[in-house]
């Protein structure tokens, strides 16, 4: 390779900072890829994690349907966050690639935890807790 093809560093500090930035980006990408790989891999742990998240998604769909058909539905739908959850899990068609599917499942699990945390709080918490299904979900995810 001719000599003038080499880049001559003039600012060591800038190079160090660029190196840190690129290394940080690479470590993020590696972590994301290995996370996705593990989730989509064939190991027992990965499969159980995926099945747990799929279960959470199913629970989320059932819970939203139940809440959406309850007498409290108009009150719940008055809040934008509830309408967003309905849009996200009841009205959006699937058809996602594997990476998007994993992201969707992870989001479903997080959203279910947040929804349950809201439901079991006052003022309606005691009312919801009278339902065995809510107590089961609470046990399972909280």
């Amino acid at each position, binding site marked *: 390779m001719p000599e003038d093809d080499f*880049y001559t560093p003039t*600012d060591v500090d800038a190079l160090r900072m*660029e190196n840190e*930035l690129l290394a*940080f*980006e690479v470590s993020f990408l590696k972590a994301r890829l290995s996370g996705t790989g593990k989730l989509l891999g064939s190991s027992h742990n990965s499969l159980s994690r995926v099945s747990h998240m799929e279960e959470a998604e199913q629970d989320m769909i059932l819970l939203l349907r139940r809440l959406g058909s309850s007498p409290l539905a108009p009150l719940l739908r008055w809040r*934008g966050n509830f309408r967003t959850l*309905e849009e996200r899990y009841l009205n959006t068609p699937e058809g996602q690639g594997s990476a998007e599917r994993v992201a969707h499942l992870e989001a479903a699990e997080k959203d279910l935890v947040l929804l349950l945390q809201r439901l079991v709080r006052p003022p309606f918490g005691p009312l919801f807790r009278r339902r065995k299904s809510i107590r089961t979900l609470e046990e399972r995810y909280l």
Partner: protein
Amino acid sequence: MGRVLASHKIDVRPVFYAGRYANRVRDAGLPGDYTVLDEWKVMPLALAGVLDEATVLVVLDMLSFPFEALDGNQWDVPLVVLLPTQLEPEVLDGMFGSPLFSRLGFFDRVATTDARLWDHLSRKYRWTASQYLWVEAVEPGAAALEIQSRLEKEDEVPTLFGGEGYEAIRYWKERGDALARTVPHRAICSVHHDLGFNKAMHRRQAAALEPQFAAARGVRADDVPFDVLEVGTGIGRWAATFDPLTDRFTGLDVSEGMVDAARTNFPEASFEHLGDDLLFPYEDESFDLVFTATVLHHNSTSAKRTLLSEMWRVTKPGGRLTFLEDFVAGAQSESSTVYPMSVLDFVDLVLETAAGRVTLEHVESIRYPQDDLARAGLISLAKLGTPRKW
């Protein structure tokens, strides 16, 4: 109070495409050594050579210019287009909507004698007041002289603000107030470089930011607004990225001049002045997305800490915090306004401010077209926690 210490003449090399009017434009006697192209000089190879050297391309004869032939990098040259007056707005829109009007961005300008035509097209394509270049002359030669004179004046820009030494709030107030009054479209990115440099930077930033904006928006019910806050909004260039029908964009800036210009540019969005204490005038958990674009790196660590703390406070749990900042120190100069901070130090600062209650969603390094090194980075975080209110 500091003052503008000096001005800096940027090397401006506008190229005028006069097409069928080339003789008339040459006869008009543009002062200086300007390149005037006729309709034979826009064959791809010839045009590429000319655009490589141009800082602005002024198109005086839109009807004969091959906009479809411009490739990706050639769109980085800022455009000034003179709208033809002989066509109805609907006809003009039908001819140029897709190849030109929808591609004109914040760094391009539209020159016209017809305010009604400007109103019609600017509403449809969300062009801003800073993009409007009103000209008196209908005749292309005289219009070329008017545009050349405006460009010449605009590029004699002040570049040093805030008196001796660099103090961020004072500097950005003075810079914003001065530029918003005189050359608002220059008050973006780097004032020391020409518009082409800044337009190319903006394109690269947009390619990184827009997917993150979409990810933050996610799937929402149609009637649930997406609340967005930009800190250090300037004249509001990122507001154009959000749909006012579904998104509620709010911008904060320390310069009142900038805030006024942003309100003129985007009347449907909301812009507020940020006080010297850097405390945001919003309740906790008010926004789904809070972001900065090349703002924090101009501030000291203590100011960064205050801004990060406020950004975290007003973000809804589950919402996104996105930062596009320089994490690589550039060559230092007397006019430098950057406090170098490496990405690892920045992440430590964020974790400390948020007490670890964030998850990392995206990291991306950014190298601008003119740079040898990757200079900027985009970091997107999700705020953990349970919303206090439904």
